[in-house]
């Protein structure tokens, strides 16, 4: 009976924590798994890569030379960008203009994908409040936008991918030529598409995103680049989100909806950049 009492107490405490301390339980569980997940990522990045290198036939010398050339080229480009950045800052100061997102780049390794049941299009990253990550921070890679931070714990954060049915991003089309102006819309994640063929939400299946509320008069060409408009105050302007596949009028005829293929291969992400707006204890 004494032993049963202990378990009854544990059960009551667990239920109480689940009901009254939900956010804490989520954060606590993620933090409890974090060291082991990080160890796994470390093993994959260091040990596994080296073991693989032993048995692979990659010509490391020529690859190294190519990368060195790339680094030199990027250093020159970076110097040019620095000069342009200084000019932009000076002009912004003259105009008294505040950029929509004042942030710094934070490299974050991907710990896991899809949570414990893979019902959401999400990633877990090894950066949290201690590194300055905040809820709502945009997550990007060189190819384009990945998503935004939805939950943060001290060492980890959850990222909702742009492909999640709950994701919304303010976007515009990169329109060619003059006289067209800016064509803006809101990019919806894949998933529930009532009018189209029903599909299950699976992590590895890339469903086209939907760019809604576009001006009905303008019919964009396929392969038009879709970029962030910066109007949502979350993503800076000009980040690539995807490429347009096709467009049609909405059933109500008031606006146009387009199908957009994401520019990022979301299933193959190992490291991403968080555009962090905060400053944490571990922030550099």
């Amino acid at each position: 009976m004494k032993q049963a009492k202990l378990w009854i107490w544990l059960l009551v405490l667990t239920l109480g924590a689940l009901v009254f301390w939900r956010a804490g339980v989520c954060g606590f569980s993620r933090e409890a798994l974090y060291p082991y997940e990080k160890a796994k990522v470390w093993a994959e990045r260091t040990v596994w890569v080296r073991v693989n290198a032993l048995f692979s036939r990659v010509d490391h010398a020529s690859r190294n030379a190519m990368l060195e050339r790339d680094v030199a080229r990027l250093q020159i480009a970076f110097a040019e960008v620095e000069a342009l950045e200084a000019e932009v800052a000076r002009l912004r100061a003259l105009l008294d203009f505040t950029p929509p997102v004042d942030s710094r780049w934070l490299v974050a390794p991907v710990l896991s994908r899809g949570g414990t049941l893979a019902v959401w299009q999400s990633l877990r990253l090894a950066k949290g409040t201690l590194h300055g990550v905040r809820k709502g921070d945009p997550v990007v890679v060189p190819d384009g936008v990945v998503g935004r931070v939805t939950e943060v714990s001290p060492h980890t954060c959850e990222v909702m991918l742009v492909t999640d049915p709950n994701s919304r991003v303010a976007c515009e089309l990169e329109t060619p030529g003059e006289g067209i102006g800016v064509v803006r819309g809101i990019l919806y994640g894949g998933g529930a598409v009532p009018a189209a063929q029903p599909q299950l939400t699976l992590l590895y299946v890339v469903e086209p995103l939907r760019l809604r509320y576009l001006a009905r008069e303008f019919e964009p060409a396929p392969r038009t680049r879709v970029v962030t408009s910066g109007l949502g105050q979350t993503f800076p302007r000009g980040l690539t989100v995807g490429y347009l596949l096709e467009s049609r009028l909405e059933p109500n005829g008031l606006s146009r909806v387009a199908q957009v293929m994401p520019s990022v291969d979301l299933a193959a992400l190992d490291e991403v950049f968080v555009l962090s707006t905060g400053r944490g204890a571990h922030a550099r």
Partner: protein
Amino acid sequence: MRVDMHLPTSVFCVFSAALLQDMVPVTETLPAKIVFLTGVALYAMLAKPLWVALTVTVWAGGLTDALGGLPLLCTSGFLLVVFGAVRLLQRVFLEATLVQGMLLTACVAVCQWVWTRLFVSTGAPVFVWQTAMVLGYAALGGLVAGFFGFALCGWADRMAGIVKPAKEGHGILWAETNR
């Protein structure tokens, strides 16, 4: 003071299952998560005393929800329903053996997938032809999870001395023989 060995073994098994379930990714070859936590919960339902089994069930469900971003008590509620069913069936035929555990986890994994999809429905139809394929994979994952859950928990229980090893044909433990 006697230590209740159910506590460390249960914590160890639930933690290991949570770690595996979170880290084993969903891929094109296996598009449904392997529900290791459900495997551990089912072992507890079949092999542990009532209150221990109930607590482990709530832990497994709570962890699945907390780490998977699911609504409060979604999986815990499901596993509590399964708890009732399993305890009833246990009187008829269910035992905590590896084979029965694997088959049971496979069936429960399929039901859990449907339950979760209905619980977090985004408006997309759940019962389409692709569901059959995913449910097949969920059952396959359930077999793996059942093997893991019942093998690991059985091993932990034997190590902790909760479950005694099966006796040899002549009634003397192999470990007790004076070789």
